[in-house]
């Protein structure tokens, strides 16, 4: 016996996928929201396809500017996605129970950031089908090998962490097999939280090391400890600092877009406090590292530090902005109890922190390559092509879509139901 599927029945079926006790906008409204993102995704996939099928001459990269917008995107989203491992670490290892309110959202954000980064990396390399060569014939001295191994392993960890979240969907959790698997997997999440923290430690670090080891690029080159240059550690600390900020920011944006309260106020406070403290540590380390680099590392290789800042538009303002406006200022806003008591100030601080880390990744990737090495060279110019920008936007659209669908059909914020029930609990 089959009956025709009427639109109202379709809406009913769709609503049955959404957990009871939470409000979600009607399906047509949701589809209206996703439509432009889908359009952007399709456009970006076309741009990426041009690069994959015909070659990277569709980009504006060249033999001097061999890394461009995409590598900047990779480094930035992976830093912002650090909230996934850091929140997991805080919840399962440091036992900060407030993090329960955002852990699912953090996992989805991590998954989105890392899968997006890997996807764009596959467009960025000239021969993506040879990606497995790195595993088969690894050069263990290369930072990129460390990055490749760790990110692949961590993406697997994120997928496993996403599994319980996905299986908690209202329809899926009715399947006993899924529910039992989810329950048991969730109980062992601490293993994956530890693995995630371990892997993140190394790949966030090796992304920094990626540039720090470039002895041929004195702007990026740093001395370090053992095989790891100082940027290795700076990247870890800055990623840990900005992860919670980004979680706070995305949670707030989701609250505004959905029109519902999703977490208790103190969750913001905790995220901001942790983020701010680590950010201040980072700024101190970064300042010390900059001084050592200016006074010892660079001069020893025949480069005066001031020379790096003679190239417009990369004047000293960029260094000062990184440390001051995007470092000390958000650090203070997030650490000071009085300042972060205001939600607007707190979010401002979080946004500045996120922008600061993005700026740092920009400096490490884009500025490093713009600066000349040979004395007679002029600074290199680079502006991304529309194909590069399109692929970039596709990753953003992909992230927004995955997050939107996850938010609609899964429980990203466990407190939402509780808050809808009777306001804030002590």
């Amino acid at each position, binding site marked *: 016996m089959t009956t025709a599927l009427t639109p109202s029945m379709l809406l009913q079926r769709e609503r049955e996928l959404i957990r009871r006790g939470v409000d979600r906008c009607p399906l047509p409204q949701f589809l209206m929201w996703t439509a432009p993102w889908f359009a952007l995704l399709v456009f970006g996939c076309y741009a990426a396809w041009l690069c994959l099928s015909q070659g990277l001459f569709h980009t504006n990269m060249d033999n001097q500017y061999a890394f461009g917008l995409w590598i900047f995107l990779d480094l930035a989203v992976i830093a912002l996605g650090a909230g996934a491992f850091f929140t997991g670490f805080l919840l399962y290892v440091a036992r900060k129970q407030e993090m329960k309110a955002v852990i699912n959202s953090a996992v989805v954000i991590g998954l989105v950031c890392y899968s997006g980064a890997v996807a764009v990396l596959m467009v960025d390399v000239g021969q993506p089908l040879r990606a497995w060569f790195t595993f088969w014939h*690894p050069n263990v001295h290369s930072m990129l090998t460390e990055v490749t191994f760790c990110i692949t392993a961590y993406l697997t960890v994120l997928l496993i962490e996403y599994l319980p979240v996905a299986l908690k969907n209202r329809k899926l959790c009715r399947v006993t097999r899924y529910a039992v698997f989810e329950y048991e997997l969730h109980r062992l999440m601490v293993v994956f939280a530890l693995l995630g923290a371990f892997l993140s430690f190394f790949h966030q670090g090796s992304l920094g090391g990626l540039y720090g080891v470039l002895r041929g690029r004195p702007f990026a080159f740093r001395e370090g400890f053992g095989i790891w240059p100082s940027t290795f550690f700076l990247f870890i600390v800055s990623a840990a600092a900005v992860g919670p900020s980004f979680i706070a920011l995305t949670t707030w944006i989701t609250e505004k877009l959905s029109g519902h309260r999703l977490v208790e106020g103190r969750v913001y406070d905790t995220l901001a406090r942790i983020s701010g403290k680590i950010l201040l540590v980072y700024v101190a380390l970064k300042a010390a590292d900059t001084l050592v680099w200016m006074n010892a590392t660079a001069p020893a290789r025949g480069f005066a530090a001031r020379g790096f800042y003679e190239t417009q538009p990369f004047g000293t303002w960029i260094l000062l902005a990184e440390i001051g406006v995007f470092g000390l200022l958000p650090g203070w806003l997030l650490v000071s109890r009085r300042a972060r008591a205001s939600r607007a100030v707190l979010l401002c601080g979080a946004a500045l922190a996120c922008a600061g880390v993005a700026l740092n990744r920009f400096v490490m990737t884009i500025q490093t390559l713009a600066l000349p090495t040979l004395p007679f060279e002029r600074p290199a110019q680079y502006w991304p092509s529309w194909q590069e920008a399109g692929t970039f936007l596709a990753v953003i659209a992909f992230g927004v879509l995955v997050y939107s669908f996850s938010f609609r059909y899964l429980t990203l914020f466990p407190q939402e139901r509780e808050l809808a029930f009777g306001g804030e*609990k002590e």
Partner: protein
Amino acid sequence: MFPWVYGFEWTAGRIVFLGIFFSVLLVMFLTVAFVFLKSAVHFRTGRAYFIQWKSLFHELPRASRACRHALTGHLPGRVCEGAFECRECSKHGELLEQGREAAIGAGAEEIMGMTVPLDRYYHRGHCWVKPLKKGLVAVGLDELGRRLVGRPDAVETPPPGTWLVANSTAFWVKRNGTAVRVLAPVDGEVIAAGGPSDDWILKVRPPAPLDTRHLLRGDEVRAWYRREVERLELIAGRADGAPALADGGELCADLGEAFPERWDAVCGEMLLDT
């Protein structure tokens, strides 16, 4: 990657790097394998349905998870952590040993216009259990449950012979094209399903002797009902801009009619469905 791959050398860097990588993979694999194994064991030992309920239980709002002893005021503010499985609860066992078990009552009580017979046991999912002769029990929706469900389009009962597990699905009530799951109050074999004119829905043969430690009775029912009406006000008020639920202190007879749009949400939440 492996010693037999061209170019492999036993250098310290390679051993450390690949050693760590393979260890990470191994830990991941073993953990997932362990989860599969553990799940399989749950199915074999018959705990799977309880686990399923347990994993859903923790998603419920705190107000829906109040301990039965919090309802009666013995343990104020206590929230159940054991998925309403009082048979496994050490706190409940302690209280029983102290002789704090509520006695099963007799007759019926009027609560907000609802007739609640006290000669039977109640499950938190709004099913009652009434012992019959020959070791059978009748299972039916209680008065609040009936008012929540109203006149269902269909009641989907399991076929006779099905083994029910307490807190897993007993039957489904369907209305307006959606279905709400009703929790089974006891373990046991389904013997018969009632028709629309019966006040019971299933007849079940539970394992003898009948274990009712996890079910509410007597004074507890009164306290629980008051709390449930509060909870309903909360849910329904949230759902539809708070129209009058109860007219002159009486709960309306059919919530499905009062909230055709939100029946699924309100009824599902009250019956502890996800």
